[in-house]
């Protein structure tokens, strides 16, 4: 349970930073082409909310992220399981995936544009690939780290393979798998918004890009704030799903 002190520190620091930026911009201590005041961003957000295009842009990014992350989970979890089930594959691919995870996959975007066309399919594919890798790696790692005694106990109780996976393996591995899902979600969102920014396709990244190229600093930061907002919502929902799964 969060205490009021924690809340005060968190929101107090946030208010301090926002207030400082407001003052710095209002006093013209920084060029407005680089930084704008939070109040002006709020005004821009309100105007765009009223016109309806901000919701449209946010929903486009949410749609892309949901599909990309959904595919990443559907492919990533079984792939991680297979790497654990067949250790030869695990040993063969683990390092390769680790190297890919550390590399800037976003640089491959021209190839995605060629394969999937200049549309949201390319954005979804890019987000999906970026999200799959941490999910596979963490699932594999989590299953490897499960205490063998648990599995032996399961066997002594004559559990079937399915029961062992459902009642022993996945619950024991869940915290690390969850870490992988959170990382996967983060990487999916980063890739999606980065690609939207680079090629001006789709949602909130496009707004930031347009703001950047047309020197509309409020729009640029509205895009950035929108991206942070979406990330917070997704992580919150993932946390909720986790607590529901554990409580059941």
């Amino acid at each position, binding site marked *: 349970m969060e205490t009021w002190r924690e809340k005060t520190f968190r929101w107090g620091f946030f208010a301090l930073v926002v207030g400082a930026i407001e003052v710095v911009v209002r006093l013209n201590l920084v*060029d407005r*082409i680089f930084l704008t005041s939070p109040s002006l961003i709020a005004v821009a957000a309100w105007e765009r909310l009223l016109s309806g295009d901000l919701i449209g842009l946010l929903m486009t990014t949410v749609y892309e992220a949901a599909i990309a992350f959904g595919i990443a989970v559907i492919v990533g979890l079984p792939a991680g399981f297979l790497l654990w089930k067949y250790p030869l594959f695990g040993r063969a691919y683990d390092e390769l995936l680790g190297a890919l995870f550390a590399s800037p996959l976003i640089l491959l975007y*021209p190839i995605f*544009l060629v394969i999937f*066309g*200049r549309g949201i399919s390319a954005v979804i594919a890019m987000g999906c690939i970026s999200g799959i890798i941490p999910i596979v790696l963490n699932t594999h790692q989590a299953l490897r780290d499960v205490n063998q005694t648990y599995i032996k106990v399961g066997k002594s109780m004559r559990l079937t393979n399915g029961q062992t996976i459902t009642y022993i393996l996945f619950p024991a591995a869940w915290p690390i798998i969850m870490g992988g899902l959170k990382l996967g979600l983060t990487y999916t969102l980063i890739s999606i918004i980065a690609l939207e920014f680079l090629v*001006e396709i789709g949602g909130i990244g496009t707004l930031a890009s347009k703001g950047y*190229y*047309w*020197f509309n600093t409020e729009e640029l930061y509205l895009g950035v704030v929108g991206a942070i907002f979406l990330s917070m919502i997704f992580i919150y929902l993932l946390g909720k799903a986790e607590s529901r799964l554990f409580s059941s």
Partner: protein
Amino acid sequence: MKNGKYRRRLFIYFLTSVMGLLFFTVSDSHGQLQTLKLAIPQKGLFDTTMPTLMADKMGFLKEAGIKPEIFWTSGGAETVRVVTVGSADIGISTGTESLVTAFMKGSPVRIISAQMTGSPELFWIVRADSPYRTIKDLDGKSIGFSRPGSSTHMILQLAVDHYKIKAKLVPVGGVPDSFTAVMTKQVDAGWSSPPSFLDRIDKGEIRIVFKAADLESIKDVTLRVNFVNASFYEKNAKLVKSYLNALKKAIDYMYQNPKETAALFAEINKFPLSVAEAGLKFFPKESVALTPVSRVDFSVDLALKLQMITKAPTEEELKKLIVAE
């Protein structure tokens, strides 16, 4: 004995150091070059790259007391930001509407000269197997330009209005990105600038569907300008003028010596000489003249139309923005 040898060696070391120090001091005082940081968009394009590199090669910059330090940028907003923040002193050949927009939004920039008027060199390509023959056939189709606020964006907007077509305008990036987008059917037509892909046009792999030179209305419009950071200009107006003089000399030299120009153009772009020579024909000398900066009203109108700015600059504001002769 041993001590004397040691002293002698020490003396030789001392003498060498002093002479070395003297040499560097003297050579530096002879040089006295002032570093000028230049933000140049899209390396290899004729008007952005060639005048400065030719001025450097022929020693015109050195004569003017300038040591160039070049930053390559992707153009438009990036060039403006680099100059605004002071990372570069001068920005080269950047879209006039970008400059007007940045200035109206408080960016401390000043236009010091024209760099491209009329932009007769730009053209749009389609795949050879494309059913589209002219820009009018692209009604309802997708057409690529480089970046919002760029001259390709301006020209495309004007062309779409002029030919009364409704096309989807897509920012595709630089020339190589544009070509990839066309060949992989991401867009129906994409922009290019000579000498890029002239050889492919000759081979029949792609076709030109529209040339900016076809637009009569922009023949006297300065679409790309050179600009400077305002506070740098206040302190270094003489240096900026020396740079512009060196550029002018380089442009004159380029058109007096087309073979040498083609060779440098080919070398920078790693093209065969014949392709570079063919590319040069797209750039009449008057299009790259540094003066005058003409028809800025045209860029202002377009920036207003695209809602890049909400109000047109006043006469006073334009006088402040454009310090070019």
